[in-house]
């Protein structure tokens, strides 16, 4: 992004310098034309024009400094103008300020929810390996039953070799006799 910015600045700066060059060059050319009309030779006319003009490079640098230094001042002037307009038209100012405030507020609200619910890791050790376990009664077609702590103990004792991580647990379906199955979802 800043790269694009830099290119844009570069372009506006070279345009500024180009304008100055064209302006100074056209001055010199007009002096040359007048000199030719006054009867000077071509070489003499140009020499005289450059001599009368003085140090062109320093003049140009001078102008560039003036033009770019004052654009900062213009920014300050714009700011003061905005403040003055707001003071003169408080209703408009209030509308603008509350619009921006609501926009910022809504954005912060949504982001803080997303941050705490989705982005921030849960405050447990190895939080990336936590799972949620549900019970299923397959024969009665009942799913998503709450998983009680005795169920959990049974599951842990009966499956000593199993790793309590997502990939292992999600395959424990049909582990319990009598149609009781434990499904997990991460």
């Amino acid at each position, binding site marked *: 992004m800043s790269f694009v910015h830099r290119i844009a600045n570069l372009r506006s700066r070279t345009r500024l310098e180009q*304008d*100055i060059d*064209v*302006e*100074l060059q*056209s*001055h010199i*050319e*007009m*002096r040359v*034309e007048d000199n030719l009309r006054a009867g000077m030779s071509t070489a003499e006319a140009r020499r005289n024009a450059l001599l*009368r*003009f*003085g*140090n*062109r490079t320093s*003049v140009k640098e*001078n*102008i560039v400094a*003036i*033009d770019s230094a*004052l654009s900062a*001042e*213009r920014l300050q002037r714009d700011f003061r103008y905005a403040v003055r307009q707001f003071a003169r038209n408080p209703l408009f100012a209030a509308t603008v300020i509350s619009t921006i405030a609501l926009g910022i507020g809504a954005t912060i609200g949504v982001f803080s929810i997303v941050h705490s619910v989705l982005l921030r890791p849960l405050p447990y050790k190895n939080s990336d390996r936590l799972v949620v376990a549900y019970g299923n009664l397959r024969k009665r077609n009942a799913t998503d039953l709450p998983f009680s702590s005795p169920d959990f103990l049974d599951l842990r004792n009966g499956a000593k070799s199993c790793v309590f991580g997502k990939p292992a647990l999600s395959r424990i379906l049909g582990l319990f006799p009598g149609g009781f199955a434990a499904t997990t979802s991460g």
Partner: protein
Amino acid sequence: MARNDLQGSLDLLALKTLSQRGPLHGYGIVLHIQTASDELLSVEEGSLYPALHRMEQSGWISSEWALTETNRKAKYYKLTAAGRKELEKAQESFEQLVKGVRAILRYA
């Protein structure tokens, strides 16, 4: 020939020229200053441009690109309302200066 003393009053000369002659490019301003002063005043021509750009940034004059009679692209400067006020002020203070200097020269 008042080459060295001209720098301070260059703003005044350029503003006055624009108020009398209407929109002009830098070269036109230089020519006017030379002919109107009977060649007594000669500006180092390049030094006029920083002054013009500074005055434009101050809002005393405005500029516009246009073609000259000989079809050359040139930047034309025009006096603004603020520039007119500035011209009056500068003219007044210059006359004060001349009066003061003259009074000292005549002091006996």
